[in-house]
């Protein structure tokens, strides 16, 4: 197989049934993750990032249903796997997850170290002492002293539990590690150290990472390519540098305005006014249209297709050809708030 793609997902959609109707949390999302890359996903709260990941890993809650035309991992069609087969053959061993609920994901009645040791021994035939050595190494990577293996989760701080889950995700050298908001509880120094060590380890075993975070600085630092989600869809994908330096989608332009920075302390952040789409029921047109300062008549009626605007750069916006004008106007506060 000469393919450089580790994971390819085509047309993945997820609906949750609720008393108010079906929530279309993810619609028609396609993306690839290459070998040996960090693929970042960003987008506002509730736009479907965790749902996308949970659907991929067959971890959706009972009221969720997912469909996809194809999902291949390392050249294998995993979409046709049964849930049991997927969990046995793929989960943890070949794709691991640091869930967004990492602080609450350890079993409260077992010692933290034992939980990682057992996770290793469940998938690998290694002795307990070999597994223990591995866990000591992994704890060191995330800045936890080896003696902490003996602690129970309630004796850990929030960030310590999160770090333990990061250690767990590295345990079996999976080809793909999915991290959903892995640094919410980590101060910048610890975060820097852990991200650096994760990068080193990843380079050693040449695995890929899907990194989901709302922290734009972290995603900029870590990612090779980034996709921006809005209302359950990917609206723009590009290399990290292109996305930051030549964004196309109005939503990306708006996000860029709102990046806070401590170097300019009192600068006012320009937020994107309006509320996220309800995602319930049929919607026509572009989902960002109600909040978009650049929308025209087509936008409300026709769903924009993905256009290629550069090498590895796609955007779903009718007005992608007017990007120079859009970029210029987007940096002014009056464009968004009048």
């Amino acid at each position: 197989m000469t393919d450089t793609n580790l994971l390819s997902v085509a047309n993945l959609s997820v609906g949750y049934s609720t008393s108010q109707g079906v929530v279309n949390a993810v619609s028609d999302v396609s993306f690839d993750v290459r070998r040996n890359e960090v693929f970042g996903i960003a987008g506002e709260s509730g736009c479907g990032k965790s749902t996308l990941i949970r659907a991929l890993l067959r971890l959706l809650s009972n009221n969720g249903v997912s469909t996809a035309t194809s999902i291949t991992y390392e050249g294998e069609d995993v979409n046709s796997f049964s849930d049991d087969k997927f969990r046995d053959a793929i989960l943890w061993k070949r794709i691991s997850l640091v869930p967004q609920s990492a602080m609450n994901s350890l079993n409260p009645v077992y010692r933290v170290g034992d939980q990682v040791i057992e996770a290793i021994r469940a998938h690998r035939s290694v002795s307990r002492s070999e597994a223990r050595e591995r866990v000591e190494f992994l704890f060191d990577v995330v800045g936890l002293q080896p003696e902490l293996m003996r602690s129970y989760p309630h004796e850990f701080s929030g960030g310590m539990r999160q770090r333990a889950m990061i250690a767990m995700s590295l345990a079996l050298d999976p080809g793909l590690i999915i991290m959903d908001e892995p640094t919410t509880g980590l101060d910048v120094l610890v975060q820097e150290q852990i991200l650096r060590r994760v990068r080193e380890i990843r380079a050693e075993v040449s695995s890929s990472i899907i990194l989901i975070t709302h922290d734009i600085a972290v995603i900029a630092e870590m990612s090779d390519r980034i996709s921006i989600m809005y209302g359950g869809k990917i609206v723009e994908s590009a290399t990290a540098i292109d996305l930051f330096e030549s964004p196309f989608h109005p939503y990306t332009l708006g996000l860029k305005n709102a990046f806070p920075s401590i170097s300019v302390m009192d600068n006012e952040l320009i937020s994107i006014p309006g509320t996220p789409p309800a995602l319930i029921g049929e919607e026509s047109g572009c989902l960002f249209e109600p909040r978009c300062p650049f929308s025209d008549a087509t936008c409300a009626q026709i769903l924009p297709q993905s256009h290629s605007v550069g090498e590895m750069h796609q955007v779903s916006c009718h007005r992608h050809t007017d990007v120079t004008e859009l970029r210029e106007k987007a940096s002014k506060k009056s464009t968004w708030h009048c």
Partner: protein
Amino acid sequence: MALLELNNVSRHFELRPGVVERVLRGGKTRVIKAVEAINLSVAKDEILGIAGESGCGKSTTCSMVAGLLPPSSGEVLYRDRNVGEMTSSELNDHRRRVQMIFQDPYESLNPRFRVSDIVSEGPRALRLWGEREIEEQVAAMLAGVGLPAGKYWDRYPHELSGGERQRVGIASALVMKPELVVADEPLSMLDVSIRAGILDLLKELSRQRNFACIYVSHDLSILANIADRLLIMYLGQAVEVGSVHDVIKNPKHPYTRALISAVPVPDPRVKRSPPKIVGEISRPVDPPPGCRFASRCPHADQSCSEVFIKLDTNSPLAHQAACHRLEQINSEAT
């Protein structure tokens, strides 16, 4: 008068040795000094930011302020009343006036309650208003945090995203109209745009209702934006305090300096260089008496591991750092 005052507050946890350790190593009980001799004060309309290393005692401090965890020593004074000496009815009252927003939104929301039940639980338990009014207040508060009742009223926590859960936690604290909000990483899962909206809501409410806030965050850019004063902690000790502007623009303590220089910038061409501090993330197990940052500090000398300067609260506006080598550090820098 300060609304809240912590005088010399410490919280220790005992690490009892397991059977094996006792037999093999004659293991003694060791002590984790999670919070050590902290002094701080919060005025009635002030937002105090707290930042520091993961595991440095921020959540433990918050729990003590909210009256959920007794200090091992020292006193927590709320309106000059020692929280540790409150009667149970006073303590109930305290827990209404002081509302905590918990760090982990996956742990803190009752999974069997709907969003509307979670947010109305407090007002209902205390009969703050009539049923109709409670519903109105709850709906207004949910809308304020970006969770319109039409869509979220009947949802259960497992049907929410991480950031939506966090906002339910914020709504249930604010709906109580507290005097002091103790917010432990309340917006850590929210993107900048929604965050800006909620920060505005917090600022607006604190103006309207005059409430105070302790705001814990590792995100210094948020703290720069919202806090009046900033307290920096390291391994259980308060190492620096001052106006948020002074601390961020002119950090004094070597730990604060390292922390601020490590803030990532939103630019993919910039990679952070590893900070200039040595050693590893540590833990306050049977720590030496001096400054706990000493073993990682590039400026430390012998005296640092022997003496620690406590910050004092009597001059709340002053910019102070708990480091007795400040002069040498400054002269080295120039």
